[in-house]
């Protein structure tokens, strides 16, 4: 026997939130979950922190005497090599977590929770965008811990820089996350992280201004210089570098915005969970 209660239904409908509220609640919920999961997986957090620290403590210390960096904006004096590679290593944290995060949106263990996410009534592009923002926020948290360790090691940008770097980190992180999502959606070979490391992360990181100023590269190889100058990661690193000193580098900002918009649009368009599903069940091979 069925009971229909028209008044109760009317109340329910009235209670349904409208306007921007559900959108904000959804964004808040996704970020909150990502943060909780981050707190629960401390192992992943330490692993993500050890990588740039190894670079900072060992690589930079070793190369400090070999690679002198002359005065160039945004730096006002001669700087130590450690100071130079700091923004690049911040970019490295974003690069790794962005790739890892967005890869998991297509493949492996996050697949189940992506299904839960995608049955939310909000549009898919918005849900994916929220997920990317959440991944980047957690990555920014890691960057700040890294900057804190740098501060202890006497790598100290001006105080205002810690504030102004935040929007730069968010934008750079979104660009890299969107790129990861785009790659994993379109390239079937990128199902495991090792492949991404070899073919995407390392080339992107090394052919950029993260480890050495571009003008130095120009002296040794013009081709490499051109590749590096076009590399989206270079723009992201330069954006972070200037922001860390309270400055805006207009062309880095413009290019990062353009790359982010481009990657986001293509990634949203190409996101197809059926692909990860095929890979898992062995269908479609």
């Amino acid at each position, binding site marked *: 026997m069925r009971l229909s209660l028209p008044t109760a239904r009317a109340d329910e409908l009235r209670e*349904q939130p409208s306007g921007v509220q559900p959108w904000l609640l959804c964004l808040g919920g*996704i970020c909150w979950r990502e943060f909780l999961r981050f707190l629960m997986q401390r192992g992943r957090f330490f692993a993500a922190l050890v990588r740039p620290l190894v670079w900072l403590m060992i690589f930079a210390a070793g190369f400090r005497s070999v690679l002198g960096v002359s005065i160039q904006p945004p730096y006002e004096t001669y700087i130590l090599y450690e100071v130079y590679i700091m923004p690049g290593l911040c970019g490295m944290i974003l690069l790794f977590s962005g790739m890892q995060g967005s890869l998991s949106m297509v493949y492996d263990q996050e697949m*189940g929770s992506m299904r*839960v996410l995608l049955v*939310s009534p909000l549009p898919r592009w918005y849900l994916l965008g929220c997920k990317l923002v959440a991944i980047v926020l957690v990555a920014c948290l890691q960057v700040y811990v890294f900057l804190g360790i740098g501060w202890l090691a006497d790598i100290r940008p001006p105080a205002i820089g810690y504030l102004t770097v935040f929007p730069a980190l968010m934008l750079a992180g979104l660009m890299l996350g969107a790129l990861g999502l785009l790659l994993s959606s379109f390239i079937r070979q990128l199902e495991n992280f090792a492949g991404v490391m070899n073919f995407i992360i390392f080339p992107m990181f090394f052919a950029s201004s993260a480890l050495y100023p571009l003008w130095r590269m120009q002296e040794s190889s013009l081709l490499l210089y051109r590749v590096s100058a076009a590399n989206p990661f270079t723009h992201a690193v330069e954006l972070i570098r200037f922001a860390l000193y309270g400055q805006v580098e207009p062309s880095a900002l413009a290019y990062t915005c353009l790359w982010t918009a481009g990657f986001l649009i293509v990634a949203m368009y190409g996101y197809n969970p059926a692909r990860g599903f*095929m890979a898992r069940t062995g269908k479609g091979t």
Partner: protein
Amino acid sequence: MSARPAGAEVDALVVEGVSFAYGRGRRALDEVSFRVPAGSFTALLGPNGAGKTTLMSLVTRLFHSRGGSITVSGFDLRRASRAALAAMGVVFQRLTLDLDLSVQQNLRYAASLQGLPSRRAEARIAEELERLGVADRSRALVRTLSGGLRRRVELARALLHQPRLLVLDEPTVGLDIDSRRAIVEHVHRLCRERDLAVLWTTHLIDEVWPDAQLVILADGRVRAVGRSEAIQAQSRCANLADAYKQLTTVAKA
């Protein structure tokens, strides 16, 4: 069809002429059509590989179908997807709870995805957990719960936003006999008491109660639709098990 048609008895789910293929391979679904009337219990029965999970992925908008249409509570899933999804609650085949988060944290996350304001979300979470007898475990980590309890939490999660249609994709996989029976009974009760339409996917005939409406799927096609007696009569079999066997093996031949 973007507005809800007038009249109370709109079918909870209408699947019409839906086809789907993975890549360029064989069709996983071929012109599948059936309906789930409002407040009814419909079992989608089919052997492994029949296309049940693919169909579920289409109904829950995970995949997009090119051919055919899917309508939830009168709302087209493609053109009015927001209203269609808001009218549907889903329990997936695999466990999709975060094991390292508590029951309450998992449910709060789900409520935020549905856009429920926090006060209302808390009230709904408490209500559903109470009803499912999990209220005392609300602060426990999901990892510490048994398989049966985890399923109940997922059921509570699917009902938070008070959907008109509940979709369950083989919800008893991996459960022991007692938990299985408990879940089957619970969902039947929900269906009766709350005027909730249920689409229950399974390959196990003993999960189908005599009064359920059946859709038998094999090899990507609908083989039979109707009440169990009607299907038995149609295939001239003494019981449902034989009818099911006959319908699904004919498909393979």
